[in-house]
């Protein structure tokens, strides 16, 4: 197969690789500025139509395990990792049998989605900002990597991202409780999503209480704080100097999804699309300038001998089940990789580009999650509303970071769905059925006693999620294995992943806090960690058991820095080695603090778009196409 030129003009101002969150934002910004943008998307575009969305919803309903990728059809041409790819072994350790080749001491437990719209289709939609001190942990606390830019540099872009994603939140509370600086009088586009009853119960028992991580440690005072969401709520008329905000509805169905109705399935799919997805941004692309090509897997970035990126090679396929790809190329002045942290690193490695620093693929980070769960003494109404509407923010910052990872605590609204697979596991357990059909079964409860027991037990389920910061470590990395390609012949990602003692110490502190939270709640603490098939993330530390999960927040793999010798991209997410090749996404982040990372990633993408616009303008003027030019 020799590269064949595509029909029509194959030359663009910008090629964006990946129609996920960061790619969709970059394409939107540059298209609106008049540049010709080609977006190449590996997955199908089915989810962008309303029938395609309904199909995914049905697939989700019919799925046995309602994991993040359950609504989305497997695609042989663009395989995705899945959390079901990992199995724990009976006495510790894990087995990985999916797209990733995993060889680290501990598993990387997160997935992503390679379909038009990307991973954000199954995100939860929480959009907290990072704390100013998260950008400079090395200078302040002596660990991790510092950003070449700080909170202040990013602040206007945070606001732009909050507009682009449509964020609902309470800025005054964020400022007061967390210490986040906002411009005077700033309000989010929409008012805060109401806190859940679960949050109120937690607040009534926890607010003002003091807990200690270890017996001698200083006391920390607890406070339940709402979290900002990229989820449609009630517009704030004060937004934008009184101009207000119009929520963006579903992609593919007008006047729908303009407010969250409490489906309680944001992960893995919001039935009404009240939750932000990049499909909404794509719906606002100026299609005369932004061309989306789906089922086009970029296999390589092409560069000349001087280090200039020329374009990309991509493989176009028709049938996702039995792909027979055609190799093509496209050229542009600027190439932007926006294929997800791990896929961006894979593309750079496969292309042999950008790796003068030997940092490509290294510094892989996630937010390792520790879970705590228990039963309250009265019904709490679990499985209602977005998965989390508030948390405890008091362990995110401060000098304790010198010795252990900080953490953010999410209060879950969905009972034990994450730790125990509720409510399905409760039904099976009460019926006397274990996971292994070869084991003898219990007698089981039936009839009114079964019904009452389920109501009593599930109705009182509460859980908390501790999102640990994971610092950049070179040994945690993505490489590629040329001997083990995917169906299209592209080398698959090999992951080497582990948790440092700093993260594990943070988990020990988090567990101590968890114990005290359940005591203060007067709840029966049911938290238990042990090895087993469902615990690939089990390990022992200082004589105690822990099990962690992935948060889906992969980053660090094309790390940003202030020098070409030690980092892959500069603060504009531009490869040091290739001035017209950008790698955007969480992969650029030198640290992720304890905040769900996508808002920060979106702010970075918008900031980079400005830079790309300047680069292109310096080279030539935008093309005039169509009547929109010249409008105010």
């Amino acid at each position: 197969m020799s590269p064949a030129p595509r029909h029509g003009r194959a030359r663009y101002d910008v090629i964006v690789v990946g129609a996920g969150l960061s790619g969709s934002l970059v394409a939107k910004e540059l298209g609106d500025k008049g540049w010709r943008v080609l977006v190449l998307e590996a997955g199908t575009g089915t989810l962008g139509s309303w029938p395609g969305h309904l199909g995914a919803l049905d697939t989700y309903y019919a799925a046995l395990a309602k994991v993040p990728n359950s609504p989305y059809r497997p695609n042989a041409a663009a395989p995705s990792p899945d959390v079901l790819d990992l199995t724990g072994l009976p006495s510790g350790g894990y087995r990985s049998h999916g797209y990733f080749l995993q060889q680290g001491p501990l598993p990387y437990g997160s997935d992503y989605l390679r379909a038009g719209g990307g991973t954000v289709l199954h995100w939860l939609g929480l959009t907290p900002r990072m704390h100013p001190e998260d950008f400079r942990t090395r200078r302040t606390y002596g660990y991790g990597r510092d950003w070449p830019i700080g909170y202040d540099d990013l602040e206007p872009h945070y606001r732009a991202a909050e507009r682009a994603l449509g964020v609902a939140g309470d800025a005054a509370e964020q400022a007061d409780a967390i210490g986040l600086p906002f411009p005077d009088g700033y309000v989010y586009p929409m008012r805060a999503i109401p806190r859940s009853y679960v949050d109120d119960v937690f607040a009534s028992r926890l607010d003002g209480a003091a807990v200690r991580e270890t017996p001698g440690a200083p006391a920390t005072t607890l406070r339940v704080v709402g979290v900002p969401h990229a989820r449609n709520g009630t517009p704030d008329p004060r937004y934008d100097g009184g101009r207000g905000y119009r929520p963006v509805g579903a992609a593919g169905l007008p006047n729908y999804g303009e407010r969250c109705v409490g489906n309680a399935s944001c992960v893995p799919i919001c039935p009404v699309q009240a939750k932000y997805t990049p499909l909404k941004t794509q719906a606002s692309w100026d299609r005369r300038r932004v061309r989306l090509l789906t089922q086009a897997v970029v296999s390589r970035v092409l560069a000349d001998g001087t280090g200039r990126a020329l374009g990309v090679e991509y493989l176009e396929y028709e049938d996702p089940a039995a792909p027979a790809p055609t190799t093509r190329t496209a050229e542009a002045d600027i190439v932007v990789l926006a294929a997800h942290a791990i896929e961006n690193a894979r593309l750079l490695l496969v292309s042999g580009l950008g790796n003068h620093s030997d940092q490509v693929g290294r510094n892989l980070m996630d937010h390792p999650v520790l879970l705590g769960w228990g039963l309250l003494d009265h019904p709490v109404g679990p499985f209602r509303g977005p998965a989390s509407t508030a948390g405890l923010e008091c362990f995110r910052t401060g000098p304790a970071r010198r010795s252990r990872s900080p953490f953010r605590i999410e209060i879950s609204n969905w009972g034990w769905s994450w730790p125990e697979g509720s409510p399905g596991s409760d039904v099976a357990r009460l019926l006397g059925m274990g996971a292994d059909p070869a084991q003898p079964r219990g007698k089981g409860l039936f009839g009114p006693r079964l019904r009452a027991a389920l109501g009593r037990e599930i109705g009182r389920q509460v859980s908390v999620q501790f999102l640990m910061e994971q610092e950049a470590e070179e040994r945690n990395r993505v490489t590629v294995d040329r001997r083990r390609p995917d169906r299209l012949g592209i080398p698959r990602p090999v992951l080497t992943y582990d948790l440092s003692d700093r993260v594990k110490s943070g988990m020990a502190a988090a567990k101590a806090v968890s114990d005290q939270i359940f005591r203060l709640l007067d709840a029966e603490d049911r938290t238990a960690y042990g090895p087993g098939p469902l615990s690939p993330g089990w390990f022992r530390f200082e004589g105690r058991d822990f099990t962690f999960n992935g948060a889906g927040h992969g980053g660090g793999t094309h790390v940003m820095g202030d020098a070409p010798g030690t980092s892959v991209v500069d603060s504009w997410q531009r490869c040091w080695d290739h001035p017209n090749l950008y790698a955007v996404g969480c992969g650029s982040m030198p640290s992720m603090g304890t905040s769900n990372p996508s808002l920060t990633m979106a702010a970075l993408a918008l900031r980079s778009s400005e830079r790309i616009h300047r680069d292109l303008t310096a080279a030539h003027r935008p093309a005039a196409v169509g009547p929109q030019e010249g409008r105010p």
Partner: protein
Amino acid sequence: MTPKTSTSARSLDDFLTASAALTGFGAFDLHGTGMAGLYHRTALEQVGGPAVGRFLDALDAAGGDPDGITDETARDIARAIAHMWYLGVWPQLAAPVHTALGRERANTAFTVSPEAYTEGLVWRTFDGHPAGAKPPGFGTWADPPPGAPAVPRAGERTSGLPGPREAGP
């Protein structure tokens, strides 16, 4: 191709009466899910008419109380039918039961249909709705569920709460 059993009616009604005893939900509620026919057919397909008949007989012999079923095969069918009603999922049978029934199909769990999931009874046991369907409306998650005490809402006690920690050096 469902062989008839010796006992008189092995109809949908019998299946519903048994289902009510298994689930603790009345036949009216079960009918209301719209799933009764599909579940009946699924049970017949999965274990065969004779085994369903023997289960119904065993339930009758126990006076309609599933706790009184002593035969392990009948009891496991009872578990499976209750599981299906609660979750919309036909489960794996106990391995010895699967063997004893001589089933000519894999012993695997599956969701009976997309609607079966959203009609699962489990959500109703705690006054909930199926995750991903039948949404109760914006902000409803802030209300106490039935049987829960009212607690102060956010904003009703915000004064005097701790601010951010002192930043490090």
